[in-house]
């Protein structure tokens, strides 16, 4: 009797996935992002090679684990110089049952410094992250660690957070906690059609004691060297400060029909190594405007520059990259985007700076992605 009931139970569990699409609720949300492109010329500090290529192909699984935890796993496949790299970009658990609007995330995840860093690359409005992000954060900094976030009990949005990371994905080193970050964000609405968010972040890199870094005298092409393996940042400092501001506007707040997004960030890094003087620092910023003028079409422009110090033994060489991007994107549905972008680079100290046209697609299938601000 008991046996048959068990059998029946097992049988129905097996059948459920076939019986109805709603049974999907037991299974994790699966989403896939396809990102491919054609790029006319190679450019400086870029993570995308010229010609046809695949960008950030992503497979993501997420689900509640139980009533106290949710989890997410994101694997990324990237092509570099003909080699496919598989990277684990996210593998974390997050609490859902903490008091006082506290949340804790542990495992591997994207650091929440700055505005763009915690976002997935496929949500971006341009083919690549701004030059300052590529140089100082390797486009997006993720690592193994722990995050604690607290929402303050204020009538407006105010979040403070701290992260501690292994740090080896930014700079190799021996510290147990190689990187820690502090971050705060504020935001709100102005009337029904405008909303904004401002953030301040601090990232401390404790693995830059000047030992290995800066002594790679033979390694002139930092940027070149860097895309072979993980996207560790090519330029680092013991302290990295980021300020960001985002403002969005939609008539009547109806983001479906039209949306104008203005955003900008400023990044500053100092204490580059033991030879650095107070005048030696990295600095970069960008500002971008994207206007989605119908549900399917958007245009955007972005200007950014980064001033860098390339370490050569006990001294530094100045480098500078200015970048202007103009893009036009078409989205058939919520889940597909084709993008045409023109990038103009003018540089000092980069041999490979060039202008390029890039045609890119970003397609998602599976679980509905999040419309984050």
């Amino acid at each position: 009797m008991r046996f048959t009931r068990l059998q029946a139970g097992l049988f129905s569990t097996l059948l459920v996935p076939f019986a109805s699409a709603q049974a999907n609720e037991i299974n994790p949300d699966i989403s896939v992002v396809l990102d491919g492109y054609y790029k006319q010329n190679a450019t400086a500090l870029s993570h995308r090679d010229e010609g046809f290529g695949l960008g950030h192909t992503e497979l993501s699984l997420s689900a509640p684990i139980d009533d106290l935890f949710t989890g997410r796993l994101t694997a990324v496949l990237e092509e570099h110089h003909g080699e496919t790299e598989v990277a684990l970009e996210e593998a974390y658990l997050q609490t859902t049952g903490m008091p006082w609007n506290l949340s804790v995330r542990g495992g591997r995840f994207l650091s929440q410094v700055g505005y763009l860093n915690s976002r997935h690359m496929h949500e971006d409005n341009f083919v690549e992250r701004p030059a300052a992000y590529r140089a100082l954060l390797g486009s997006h900094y993720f690592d193994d660690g722990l995050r604690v976030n607290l929402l303050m009990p204020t009538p407006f949005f105010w979040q403070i957070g701290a992260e501690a990371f292994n740090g080896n994905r930014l700079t190799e080193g021996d510290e147990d906690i190689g990187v820690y970050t502090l971050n705060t964000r504020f935001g709100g609405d102005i009337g029904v059609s405008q909303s904004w968010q401002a953030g301040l972040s601090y990232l401390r890199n404790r693995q830059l004691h000047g030992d290995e870094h800066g002594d790679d005298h033979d390694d002139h092409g930092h940027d070149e060297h860097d895309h072979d393996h993980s996207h560790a940042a090519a330029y680092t400092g013991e302290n990295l400060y980021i300020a960001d501001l985002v403002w969005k506007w939609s008539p009547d707040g109806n983001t479906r029909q039209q949306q104008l997004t203005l955003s900008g960030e400023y990044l500053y890094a100092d204490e580059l190594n033991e030879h650095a003087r107070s005048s030696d620092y990295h600095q970069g910023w960008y500002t971008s405007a994207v206007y989605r003028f119908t549900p399917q079409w958007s245009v955007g422009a972005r200007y950014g520059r980064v001033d860098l110090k390339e370490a050569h033994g006990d001294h530094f060489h100045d480098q500078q990259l200015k970048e202007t991007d103009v893009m036009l994107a078409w989205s058939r549905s919520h889940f597909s985007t084709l993008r045409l972008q023109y990038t103009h680079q003018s540089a000092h100290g980069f041999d490979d700076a060039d202008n390029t046209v890039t045609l890119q697609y970003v397609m998602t299938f599976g679980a509905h992605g999040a419309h984050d601000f």
Partner: protein
Amino acid sequence: MISKPNRLAWVFGWLLALASMPASANLNVFACEPEWASLVSALLPDANITTATTAWQDPHYIEARPSLIAAMRKADLAVCTGASLEAGWLPSLISRAANRKIQPGSDGLFFAADHAPLHQSHDHVDRSMGDVHPEGDPHLHLSPDAIPLVASALAERLVSLAPDQQAQIQVRYIRWRGEWNQQRQSWRSAARQLEGTGVVTQHSTFDYLLRWLGIEVIADLEPKPGLPPGSTHLRNVLATPELGRASVIMVASYQDDRPARWLSAQSGVPAIVLPGTVTGQPDGETLEQVISLIINTLLNYQEPTNVD
């Protein structure tokens, strides 16, 4: 003068005091759409309600913006449509607000679609069909039969969260139900005039009501659910022989009305913009008023044809 550590302690103490302030007696309610805000305020008028969207905003495409995270942070109850209508923003809001009262499966999260049968549920969906929800059409808020089921479940949920107000909530629910039934009688008699007529729509926003009234949807301006009307599809609609039977082209207040105006100019079928939900304006403060407004408008466009 306060020394630095003291000042920090002072700030921290102040923040702690703020955090531990006794929650106000009134329930904080986060309503994803204005129709649920109006239902909550009918049942619990002194609730502090934040409404995430308006009748001029497409509820599919809201962003998890800071002000909504702040509202979700302090909510005791979130009332949403469910059936994946808010799939793009509600999970993100819930996760970022880290409010343990509002979590999937908890009493603090109420989905209207869980309490009424949905039309057009699918065993199989893929996105080549458009943005179709496997659970069924989530736009149930204008359904004369579904809303009482939702209201009854909502009243029950409010009682469980504010047990001291049980009697008042139950009295208000019975009164609300009486008024709704009375209105439904008048809608039923209007339906006798409207039954068998046809309309053109854009998305399934009004489908529950149209089905209830016995009105046929002759064509949808969206080529697939969730895709904006394109010129190829509009030309196909224009070529539909049944288009002549349509009394109106209905567009919801949050939709772009240009495709409907174009089709109207080409075909002579009048295009009308109707509130997609509760607007807060004098003729659209409650769901009853919105449904009555839609039915009366449809009746107005019916009469000339009857006279002919």
